[in-house]
Structure formats: C-alpha cells, structure tokens
C-alpha cells in the first residue's frame, strides 16, 4: 500500500501519472484561500472499475469506467464553497480553486477578500485496513472471468426450476490524494470488489426472484472456492424457498431480526439521526437528547471505520481525519454524534473521522461507516422461543428514514413466521415501518451472535452514495408495524 511514512515530496500516483507536485498543491491552496476562506482541502481521485455480466452461463457484456478529477473545498466559518475539475492541469485547477474561493466568499456574489498563508503539506500515514495480495490493477480479465465461470458452474443445474441466472462481478480501484491548508497530506488506494448472483425460478406458472452478494475492500484472494460455493448455494436456496412462502397477518407484531443485514435497523432508526450535520441545525429527532437513556442496558451501538476489509472501512476519512471506532450508544445511553470537520467545529469537539464523500465531485458530509450492535446475553434460540406470534426477518434491504420525525422503514425480502416460539414457514416481501426512538426503546433481547452482513450496502444521503457495512446480533423488537402483501387481504 502507499501509506508510507515518507514525508518528502513524493506525491505518488498523482505525481507519477498526472504531474501534480507539492508546489502545485501549495499554489492551488493559496488561490483557494485568496478570498477570505479560513480552511481549504484538495481531493484528488482516480477510479478504474470493471463490471462483467454472465447471463445464463454466457459472459456476454461488460462495462468499464475511468473516473478522474479533483475537488477544491473552501470553508469560511460554517459556509462552504465547492468546485471540481476533471482536467488535472494547472490552469483548469487554478480556475477551480478560484471558483470555490468565490463561492465560499459569498455564494458567488462578488466581494473582496484577503489571502491566507498555507502550510506545506506533510504526508501522514493512515491505517492499513485493506492490504491486497492480488490488487485489481494487476489482475487479468481472464482471472475475473474464471471467477464468474466458477460461480456459473455451481449455479447451473442446481435446481430444475431455475429459468434465469444473472451473475455479476464488479471491482474498482481508487487512488486518493488529499491535502489540507493545515498541512495534512494523505494518500490511499481503496479497493472494492463484489460478486452478485441473481436468480429467477418458476414453479407451476409462478415466478420468484432473489439475489445474494458478497462485497469487500479486498483483492482477488478474497473470493475463495468455499465462498463462491456458498454464494451459489444461497442464491438458489433463497430463490426457491420463496415458493414455500405463506402469508402472515399485517399490523403490529414482535419482530426478531436475524444476525447480519438486519443491522439496517440501526442504520435507519438511529445512525442517520446522529450524523451531526442534522443535529447542529437541530433538525434531527435526536438533536437535544445527548446523554439521554434511549434504550435498555443491552443496547450498545458502534459505528466503526476500522474493521479490516469491511465495505465501510476507511484508512482515513475524506477530509484527512483519522479513521476510528465511535460508540454512539453505550448501555442504552446516547453518547456521541458522528462528526465531520464542520460539525465538530460547531460543537467544539473533535471529528469522529466520519467526513466522507462519494467522489471528488462532492464536499464531504458526516456519514456512517460500519454500524453494528455489540452482542448481548441471549442465545438466538431463547429469543425466537420467547415469541408467540411474529416475524423472523432474515434478508433485509431498502432502508429509508425521515430524520426529523424519526420514522423509518426497511424491507424484508425473505424471512420466517414465528408461532409458539418456533420458525414455522417462510415469508417474503414485507415492509416494516416504525419510529426510530420507539423501535430502539422496544429492543428487549439482544443475542450473543453478532455478525456483519456480507453484502455490500450503499448508503445514500443528499445525493451522495458511499459504501457502508452493517451488522447485528439476533435481536428482538417487541413490536413493529409489518406491512402485508396481497395474500393477506
């Protein structure tokens, strides 16, 4: 990896391939601060990505992308000006710096301003959370095809009801360089890779579809043979099991959340509400509740950017702050917001390393990384056994939240009905909706089997999407509103 501690003028990738040197950074930052800004940062990024599709056993299409550019952010108190350039030549980048300076000064209205001294940036190493034995830049296309064909062979013929399989492999490799007017220089290479299996099956004229994915910040070595075999098995099982799904009653009922992807509950019910940009404006339902008890003692919720190879892992955040593990709720008590530089300044606290951006086209915002709940005292069987009539939510997706009112929703693609403490039959396609604070206060049992979801969740906020992870141990929410499907009418 490129996080060497060498602080001399090595600007690594962007010097080698785009001719951007230390003197250029200083000049760009001086220009950026020429109109009264008090801080600026430069974010350089080049992403190369490949996406290959195998349809019914034939690798018949591929998509590639090169995404190159640099963004300039200028802050003046709590105001920000942002501009980016896709041309990494000095005239274009200087123009970009001037635009950002002028936007921060007065939202583009003309005013004067003074210059500010810029300290020469010094390279600061980050963590090394995603070392790769086989980095994607060095992996031949044939290796990727081999991976897809291996998966294809396992899915083909696995079940006679299968009428369509779509297998997709995606990888990307991002070079990042970040420089700030406070003298911080950071460089990173961020891998991301994903293997997705989608299936459609038919039985007696009825069709069902489902999918599974594994995603990580890893190289080729991550996709082991047992993992690929497991992915194939899950894709087929999850699809064909839907034929056995039967209706459940709609309305308020106990919900047991399975370990893994059900961490989406935390992401929506509280995670977004603790992002401090929503709180410094007091628009979040959690804005005035720091230090309050919001859940029972079993509930400790963490947002962690330091889990090796996880989808939400970051060696440092997108404004140069150290990556960290942030305890949001400790034993039921609200402990911390998620801060970026702007919100930390507002609250006179430190950044939690949560400033993230989709790409050089965007200014950073406080965002989640890997959000999960610490394990509790119960065995999963004990938790399921305590429910007379309810839902066991297994495969979750499509979360959404309304920050101010705190209501949130997420979708159960597949799960089980619980009757008299036992899983009785599969259920599918149910939307769950509730109030975040209320749902947290209704967590009555937490299991001892914490797992991070293997799938690659993407979190959207204010038009920006970033990779995140989520996890949960088996957890009982004593009551949530479960939406039915037509068969319940």
């Amino acid at each position, binding site marked *: 990896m490129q996080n060497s501690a060498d602080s001399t003028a090595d600007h690594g990738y962007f010097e080698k391939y785009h001719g951007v040197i230390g003197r250029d950074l200083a000049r760009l930052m001086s220009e950026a601060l020429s109109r009264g800004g008090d801080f600026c940062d430069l974010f350089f990024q080049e992403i190369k990505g490949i996406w290959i599709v195998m349809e019914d056993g034939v690798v018949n299409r591929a*998509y590639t992308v090169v995404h190159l550019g640099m963004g300039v952010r200028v802050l003046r108190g709590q105001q920000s000006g*942002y501009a980016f350039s896709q041309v990494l030549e000095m005239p274009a980048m200087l123009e970009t710096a001037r635009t950002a300076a002028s936007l921060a000064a007065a939202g583009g209205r003309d005013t004067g301003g003074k210059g500010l001294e810029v300290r020469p940036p010094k390279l600061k190493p980050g963590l090394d959370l995603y070392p790769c034995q086989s980095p994607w830049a060095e992996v031949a296309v044939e290796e990727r095809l081999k991976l897809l064909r291996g998966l294809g062979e396992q899915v083909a013929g696995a079940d006679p009801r299968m009428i369509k399989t779509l297998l997709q492999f995606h990888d990307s490799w991002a070079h990042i360089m970040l420089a700030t007017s406070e003298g911080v220089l950071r460089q990173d290479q961020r891998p991301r890779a994903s293997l997705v299996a989608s299936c459609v099956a038919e039985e007696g004229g009825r069709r069902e579809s489902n999918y599974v994915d594994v995603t990580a910040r890893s190289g080729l070595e991550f996709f082991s043979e047992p993992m690929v075999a497991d992915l194939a098995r899950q894709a087929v099982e999850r699809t064909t099991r839907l034929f056995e799904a039967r209706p459940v009653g709609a309305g308020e009922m106990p919900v047991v959340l399975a370990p893994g992807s059900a961490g989406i509950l935390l992401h929506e019910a509280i995670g977004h509400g603790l992002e401090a940009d929503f709180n410094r404006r007091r628009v979040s339902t959690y804005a005035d509740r720091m230090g309050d008890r919001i859940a029972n003692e079993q509930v400790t919720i963490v947002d962690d950017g330091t889990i090796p190879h996880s989808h939400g892992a970051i060696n440092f955040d997108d404004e140069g702050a150290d990556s960290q593990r942030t305890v949001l709720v400790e034993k039921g008590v609200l402990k911390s917001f998620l801060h970026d530089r702007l919100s930390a300044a507002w609250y006179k606290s430190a950044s939690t390393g949560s400033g993230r951006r989709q790409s050089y086209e965007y200014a950073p915002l406080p965002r989640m990384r890997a959000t999960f709940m610490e394990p509790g005292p119960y065995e999963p069987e004990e938790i399921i056994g305590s429910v007379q009539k309810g839902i066991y939510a297994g495969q979750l997706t499509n979360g959404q939240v309304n920050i101010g009112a705190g209501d949130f929703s997420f979708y159960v693609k597949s799960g089980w009905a619980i009757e008299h403490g036992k899983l009785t039959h599969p259920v599918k396609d149910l939307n769950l909706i509730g109030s975040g604070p209320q749902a947290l206060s209704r967590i009555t049992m937490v299991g001892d089997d914490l797992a991070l979801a293997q799938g690659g969740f993407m979190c959207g906020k204010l038009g920006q999407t970033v990779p995140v992870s989520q996890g949960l141990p088996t957890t009982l929410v004593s009551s949530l*509103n479960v*939406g039915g499907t037509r068969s319940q009418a």
Partner: protein
Amino acid sequence: MNEELIKTAHQVLELAQKAGSHQAGVKISRSRFIDVSIRDGEPDKASASTRQGLSLRLFIEGRFAVHSTSDLRPQGLAAFVADAAALTKALEPDPYRSLPDPTRYPVGPAPELGLYDPELAQAPAGYWADKAARMEALASKRAKDSGPQVVSVIGGAYGETAFGYLADTSGFQGTLEETGGFAGCSMVYMDQEQENKRRSGWWWEGSRQLGLLGERQTMQRIAGEAVRRGLAEMGAKPGPSGRYGLLVENQAARTLLGHLLGAMSGQSLHNKRSYLSGRLGEPIAAEILTLRDEPFLIGGMASRWFDAEGAASSPLVMIEGGALKRYYLNTYYSRQLGLAPTTASASNIVLKPSHAEDFSAMLAGLERGLAVTGFLGGNFNSTTGDFSLGVKGLWVEGGSVKHAVEGMNLAGNALELWRGLVKVGSDPYPFSATRAPSLLFDGVQLSGA
C-alpha cells in the same frame, strides 16, 4: 468548445474501428451546473463545476461492452480505446447485439423542443446566489408567520446547462442542448403535539426557461406550498388497518408509475423479472388508464428527438383503455424478445384524465381512506407485481382530513391495484418527466394502528 467535443467523439470512433470494432457508438457530454443554498439567513453551501464524460459502445466480432471515462486528454484516448477493445474481445459473442437499423435514425433538422434558453445558460453565479437568498428570505418569513416553532429554513437555487453529442459508425450524428433551472425551499418545524418530533415541508419548481423561474409570484407560491406541506404533517400518526380507498397525490404518484414503467422495460422482460411479460394487448389496468410517451413536449423535462441509441423519437401510446400496447424496447431487447423495437426508455409520460378534478377535489370526494403525499422505503417486486411500501399522508373521512399519517404500510399486487383505478386527475405534476396526475384507487390493503 462543443466543436472540440464533436471532434474528440469522431477520433474515438476512428480509434475504435482501427482496434477492430466493426460497429461502435459514442456519446460525449459536457455540462455546467451551479447549486447554492442559504440556511437561516446565512450562505450554507455553494458548488459549481463543469462535468464531462465520454461513453463508447463497442461491437467487436459479435461481442459487446460499454466503456466510459471522464479523462478526455487526447494523449490518453488511444490507450483508453485499446484497453476497451481488448476487454471486449475477451468476452463471449452475443448475436443479438448491434447498432440500430439505420432506417430508424431521425431525418434532420432537429425539431425546436424549447429545451435551451441562452439567458439561463449565461446567468452568472451571482444570479443563483441572489435567487437562493431571496427564496430563503421569503420562506423564512412565511414559516415564522405560520405559527409553530421553526427549527431551520433553507432556500436554494440550481442551474444547469448541458451539451450532448451522439454518433456511431452507421452514420448517426445528433446533438442535444439543454438548460434547466430550479428554485425551492424547505423548512423544519417542531411538532406542536409530539415531543422531539420535527415536521418538514418542502417545495421545488423548475423550468427550462429562466424567465418562468424568476418571478416573485413564483417564489411566493413555492414558499407558500412548502409551509402548507409542513403544517399538514403536524401530529402525524398511523391510521387504522384494513381495506380503504387510496388517493395518491400527483408528485407521489410518480413512484407508482415508475414501478409500472419499469415492468414495461425490455430489460425486465428479458430478465424474466416482469409481471407484464406476455400481456401485450391484454388489460393490465382499469379502462380509464391511457398512458402516452410524449418525447416532443415543448420544454418537457425528458423531451428529445432521438433516444439513447440514436433511434428517432415519436409519440407512442403505451397503455390504451387499460390495455398494454407496447413495451420499451431498444434494438437488443427487441431482437431478444422477437418484437419490433419501440424506444430505448421512457421520455415524458402523460396520462389522459378521466375526471376534471385535482387532488383537493378528489380528496373531498373520498368517503374513507388514505391520501398519500409521499412514500418511505418499501419495495416493488417487478417479477410478481407484489409491493409493500411505507406511506405518509392524510387520513380522510367524509371528504375531509381527520389527521396526518405516518408509519403506515401499503401492500398489494400491481395488477389488482391498477385494475382498481377509479379516477385519473387533471392535475399533472409539471416539474418532472413523469407528468403524473393525482390517482384514486379502490380498496387497497393498509396496515397501521
């Protein structure tokens, strides 16, 4: 500037042919935007930039791939095309891939669609900053005068001008120049009845023409609408579970139409993920549903004279009298499915009204049920047509609003839902390509309190 892009596009096509591509298509685009927001009287965020990109469709020895880049340096394009060709050649052939039949290309000159306003394209940054500030000032005043405690108010303005050029080795060449401007505001109130809850109202309006956006009257209407929406959410709670009438406000109805259009796409059909598969000519909705694809609407948000692969646009009846008339089929999916091509994707969507009624009038006629003003999460399963969606809105009894609603789910199957369509309103939402009117459905399953 645009001439340079056109030149680059043709250079890339030549490089592609030299690299062995017997057919290739290229799209090159450049756009400039500015986005300014003012919060609580202070500048908050402002950004402005130029975005550029190129995407190349390669057809080599029956193999197909699409390659895109934002790096348009002339010295880098040769390597980009060489890499693209090498990857494409590593795939397996797909006999259904090719450029469109050239007889489907439009015959020029391009029609005047009212998509480009030079005045908007040239408006300086300060224009948008001033507009955002005026929007915020108006919205703040309206919010403060409206009664409840105001937490925060944002005013915003957005302007964009875009140039796109599409060309291919069969000889197609087409340009599209567009402008768009938006102004809007949002405000957050403390709920008067429920502790710690905030209620927000927002409204945006947009136009291709600067003149239509600039009037004080327009901004007054935007601020008033946002306030009205925020106040309407006070005290929101779930309504009762059961089967009730469902009225969906025009801007929210775009979500339901989006699901319907998605199931009509060649991709969904080919992937065996469409509940509308094999239903051409059959009734898929109540007889009052007639849905047209209208690419030539003057100033329309998705107006165009050619589609994504260069095929000529034309108005198309997609659903008539409740019967499915066409799918959205590009060259590839039409060949895969053995049907004539139509157009690659939806443009402007227009529904024929069944009643001369808007949302309020339809609400006044609703005996008991939910008036949906927004969706929260949920999912539409296009394979089966089953959906389960979070909703918010207004609980209605005897034609009047009883209370605001949140925390309810709406579930059903798309075929049943659309067959239960009772009224199509005459109030199309004008600020989007999908000009959805308000829609009234019969007996839909709701789960709430």
